[in-house]
């Protein structure tokens, strides 16, 4: 039976963008303000969950053709690789660096290697959460 829930569909189409924006905002506000990779990733995956709820799993899968297990693996690899990166500079494992750069539009910006690590975390969270939701949801 197909339920025609127009309201949910139209709200989701708008809400997903708001959620994604919030996720990105929280992700970048990390390591000085509340936020960071884990929270950002969790909100990002909540956007996916909302999509899975509103449209069916197959539709979303054709629209976003990625294997979320691979996403988690890519994230884990990024996180470990940034930790290992410090080894090449003779620093202890998981050392971090940051610097201030004058960028064209953003002005003076702080760029930190933590952000790379955090992006790995965010990917892991998205991959794992969506995989869990899908594996519970798929065979009901």
């Amino acid at each position: 039976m197909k339920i025609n829930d127009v309201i949910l569909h139209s709200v989701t189409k708008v809400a997903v963008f708001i959620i994604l924006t919030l996720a990105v905002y929280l992700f970048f506000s990390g390591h000085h303000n509340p936020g960071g990779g884990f929270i950002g990733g969790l909100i990002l995956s909540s956007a996916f969950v909302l999509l899975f709820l509103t449209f069916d799993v197959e539709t979303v899968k054709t629209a976003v053709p990625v294997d979320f297990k691979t996403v988690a693996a890519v994230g884990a690899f990024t996180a470990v690789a940034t930790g290992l990166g410090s080894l090449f500079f003779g620093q202890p494992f998981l050392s971090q660096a940051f610097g201030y750069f004058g960028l064209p539009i953003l002005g003076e910006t702080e760029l930190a290697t933590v952000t790379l690590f955090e992006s790995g975390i965010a990917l892991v969270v998205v991959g794992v959460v969506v995989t869990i939701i899908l594996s519970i949801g798929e065979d009901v």
Partner: protein
Amino acid sequence: METVITILSGVLVSISTYMILSRSVIRIILGISIFSHGVHLLLLTMGGLKTGSVPLLGRGAESFTDALPQALILTSIVISFAVTALLLVLAYRVYQELGTDNVYDLRGFKDDL
């Protein structure tokens, strides 16, 4: 305030103990997640609650809250999240394969290999 929170976490732990000792797998899982909340609250209390300031670094800070318990709790929440998800999937699979969510029916190892 610390006393109240400690009592609260004690209440949570006792509720969860009651639930973990029940027969239904779902109740056990809920009990475990309540248990984790109790433990997290206790961890927060152990660092000292509300010293009148936020956890903040900076050399001139007069007072600050211990930031370590919060980091520990965040880590622990992530772990309990993963474990609860895994337990739910497992309970669902057990229900599918064995047709029961009663732990009393999950006893024994005589019947098959």
